[in-house]
Structures are given as C-alpha cells and as structure tokens.
C-alpha cells in the first residue's frame, strides 16, 4: 500500500465479499436444494439452510438411477466423465510432448509442415465442422465408444506450443553431455526432459482435465446411449421442465457431483494451475 486508507481497504474487502457471494450463491443454492425434498424445492422461496435429506438424495443419485435417462446412475456417469477427462488430459500431454520433442530435437524434411498442421487445428474447433466430423465418427464406428469420446480431442496445438517453447530453453550443453554419456533419444527424453518438465505437466494436467470434464458439444454429438453419458450430458437429459416426473432432488445432487471433481483439482493444484494458465495462453 502506498498510503494507509482504512476506508479504502474496507471498501476493497467489502467489494471482494460481494464478488464472492455473487460467484458462490448459485452453487450454494443448488447445494441447499440437493439436501431437500421435491416439494420444498418447488415451493419458492426455498429456505437457505441445508435440509435433512443429504444422505438420502446423494445416495439415490449415485446408486438408484433416474428414469429419464434409462435408469443410469450418477455413479456410472461420474465414471464415464472421469475416464474421458483423464484420457483426454493424459493423451493430449503425451502426444504434445512427443510432437514437441520431434520438432525441437530432430532435423528432418517437412518438419515445419507438420508444425503448421498442428498449429492450424487451433482454427478448426469442432463447432465449425460439426456435421462432417459427425459423419467421420459414424463411418469409423466410433459413436457410443470411449475411443470416440476421447481420441479426436487428443490433438493439442496449445500444449504442443507450450512444450516446444519450454524445450527450446534447454541448453545445448545438456544434450551434448547426454550424447557423450551415450544416452539415446529415448533415454534423454525419459531421464532428462521429462523430469525437467514436471511443473509444466502438472499445470497442463489441471487445465486439460478441466477441459475434458467440461466438454459438451462433443459428447452430445457422439453418444446416443444413456450408458455412455458423461455426467454433464446426463444431467442435461435428466431435466425436463414440463415433466412432473423430473426428480429435482436427484438433479440437484447430480449437479453438485458434476461440479466437484474439476473444482477440487483446480483448488488443490491452484498454484501450478494459475502459473500454467497465464504462461500457456500468452
């Protein structure tokens, strides 16, 4: 602080508290709703004190399943989301490390062509090629498969850039030393490059896990079967406003369950995540 202004500091705290309340209120409301009964939820204004049905509602969501989505349980959908998010995060990291490694540490014909091919994928998000991509998925029999949900999302221009940028800061002496000691390319990658990239990998993991978990359009396109729903798509399919059968208490519990894993990853790995986000996007 340049000068002491108690009033200014107080204002700052006040604004931040308001900001946090605005940010947290919708989630708090859903949490409270997830501990109450349907009649209580459907009679606004709902009291803002958590109710007594926490165990019952979450148990029902996780293990009993919901009629609108063919009796699939939130447990099953959570598994799908975990699998998809992990596969996408790990797949993207592995592929981008290998690509960046090839581009930085080898010289070969067409090197820059490949680099630009990866770069251009930035300009072709799935939203601009919905129908033809869907057709490719049908032709390859990838609808309603885990491979279909994950593999097409594993190419990553951003992650490849980040690793390329980082690999370029590795001093030549290190490679020379490794070669003098008789280390081949695999050994160099495994024993020197990967350990040095640990923080980058951790930061990217948080960002990419969140990316995979929050996908919407892609799983909507490539899954029909309720068994294959990610939790976010499943949640959307559970909600039918015109339908008196909608199990609102289960919907609310499932909403919380669908938010929790990526939020935990971001909060627990906050330091790496913030650093990685600011660095990778600039």
């Amino acid at each position, binding site marked *: 602080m340049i000068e002491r202004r108690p009033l200014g500091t107080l204002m700052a705290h006040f604004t931040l508290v308001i900001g946090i309340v605005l940010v947290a209120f919708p989630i708090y409301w859903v949490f409270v709703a997830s501990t109450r009964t349907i009649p209580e939820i459907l009679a606004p204004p709902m009291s803002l004190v958590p109710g007594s049905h926490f165990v019952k509602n979450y148990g029902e969501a996780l293990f009993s399943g919901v009629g609108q989505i063919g009796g699939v349980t939130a447990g099953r959908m959570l598994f799908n989301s975990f699998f998809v998010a992990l596969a996408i995060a790990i797949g993207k990291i592995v592929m981008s490390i290998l690509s960046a490694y090839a581009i*930085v540490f080898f010289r070969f014909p067409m090197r820059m062509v490949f680099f630009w091919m990866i770069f251009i994928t930035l300009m*072709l998000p799935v939203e601009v090629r919905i129908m033809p991509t869907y057709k490719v998925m049908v032709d390859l029999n990838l609808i309603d498969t885990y491979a279909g949900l994950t593999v097409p999302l594993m190419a990553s221009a951003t992650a490849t850039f980040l690793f390329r940028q980082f690999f370029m800061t590795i001093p*030549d002496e290190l490679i020379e030393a490794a070669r003098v000691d008789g280390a081949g390319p695999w050994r160099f990658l495994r024993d020197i490059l990967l350990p040095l990239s640990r923080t980058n990998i951790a930061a990217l993991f948080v960002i990419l896990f969140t990316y995979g978990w929050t996908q*919407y359009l892609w799983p909507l396109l490539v899954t029909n079967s309720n068994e294959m729903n990610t939790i976010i798509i499943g949640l*959307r399919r559970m*909600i039918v406003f015109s339908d008196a059968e909608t199990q*609102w208490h289960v919907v609310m519990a499932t909403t919380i369950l669908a938010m929790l894993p990526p939020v935990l990853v971001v909060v627990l790995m*906050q330091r790496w995540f913030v650093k990685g986000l600011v660095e990778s996007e600039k």
Partner: protein
Amino acid sequence: MRRNQTQESMRQRVHFPNKLLPYLLLAPQIAITLVFFFWPAYQALEQSLYREDAFGLSSEFVGLENFVLVLEDPNYVNSLEVTAIFSLGVAVLAMAAALLLAVMADRVVRGRGFYRTMLIWPYAVAPAIAGMLWLFLFNPSMGTLAYLLRRAGVPWDPVLAGDQAMALVIFAAAWKQISYNFIFFVAGLQAIPRSLIEAAAIDGAGPARRFWTIVFPLLSPISFYLLVVNTVYAFFDTFGIIHAVTGGGPAKATETLVYKVFNDGYVNLDLGGSSAQSVILMAIVICLTVVQFRYVESKVHYG
C-alpha cells in the same frame, strides 16, 4: 513466427541424428489432425458448394448459392445480431467485474489467498452447468430469485420473453468467465512496477487517478488479449449454456451462430446450408486467431 525460427536454429545446433524416429513421434498427433480436423474441414468446404436432395441420394454443384441463401436468410441475420449482442454483453460484463475484483484483491493484504481461491474455482465449472445453475435460480416454477423478482413487480418469465432469456444466458456465461479474466488481470497487476505507482503517489495522485492514468493503460495489452479470448469463448464455448438453458428460444431470441449450425445440420439435416454456415464460422475463427497471434508477436517485440 519467422523470428522464432531463426532464434531456434541459432540456439539449437545439437540434434539427434535419427531419420525415422521423429516421424514416429509425430505420427499419433498428425493422424488425429488429418482424420478429425483436416478431412472434416475439407468436407465442410466441399459440401458448402453442393446441394443435396431431401433423401441424400444425389447432390448437385451450386457454386456459392448456399452462401447467398444463408446470408439472405432473415434467421441468419437475426442469429448474427444475437451473437453480437451476446458476445459484447458477456465480454463487457465478465471483464469489468473481473477487473474490479482484481484491483480490489491487489489492494488488500489480509485474506488475499482466501479471496483469490474463492474467485478462481468457478473456472472449473462447465459452461452448461453454469447455465443450469442460473436456470434453477431464475426459473419461474422454482427459482428463488425469479420469485423475488416477481414479488418486486417484475413480470419475469424467460421462457416467454426473449430479452429476459438473453439476459439470463449472458449473466450465466459472464459469471463463468469472471474467474479466467480475474486470474489474468491479477497477473497483469502484479507485473506493474511498484515504483511507478509510488512515484505517482508522491506527486499527489490519489488512488482513482493512479488507476486511470497508470494502471489502466498498462493493463491495455492484457485487456485486449482478454477481449479476443472472451469473444472466442462467447462465440464457441457457450454452446452448452444456450443448449441447456434456452435451446435458442424463445422464438430464436438466443440462437447464436454455433447453435444455429448445430440445429440446422444435426437436428434439421440441412447439409448445404449448415456447411456454408460452418465455412463462415471458420473464417471468423481464422480472423480471431490471427488477431490474437498478432498481439502475441507485438508483445514479443516491445516487451
């Protein structure tokens, strides 16, 4: 890019001699790129020049006619307007709120870490879920806030009133994006040299004056970057919000360009029209990406 290349070839002179290995290393990513990015994009380009009959049996080359039809379609023009209003609303709201909170978070000493964590975590909430949260709060049949609005005399019903539905999706989309912008503004504020601010303070500039004459101009590169990112977000990543909350309605009042491509192609099976729209979207993404990278390059030049 060229600068980077020369830099790179000057720095990295030691390479592994393998001839085949680099291709194998690149193979997985290039294969995915070709099958799931380039081929479908090429298909979209090609289909945008053809018209299929209703049964998908034959198709005929029609040149740019699909584009003419799309651009003349009042629904498409409406969708352009909707997207413009939506993006502008989301970007302005999310950036202004984030900047205010970042400046305040930069001022306080006590509780800094706590405030930061509490403002960062919505980054991990999926756009579709952000939409559903706001839908629950503002749905006439159960939303507490809808109830309060109605009791205050506001005829609130986003299911019927287009502008209210639009306000709802804008707030939901902006709400989710605040944490991302906040992280970047906080990083930008930390990069401003303390000495500059101290010098201004010694010269007698108060906090407001210091903000507008020093902090705000120095944040302009980051603000510009965020403006591009927020526009991309509002264009593409908010599909989940629109799909989950309004389904483009009521009466197409919230039908953004991406939602319309999805609806025309995937739901109504109009391949030619949907492809022409895809190609227009591609052009928009290319422009936005070029702008974004120009910015990155200019930052490299002027530090």
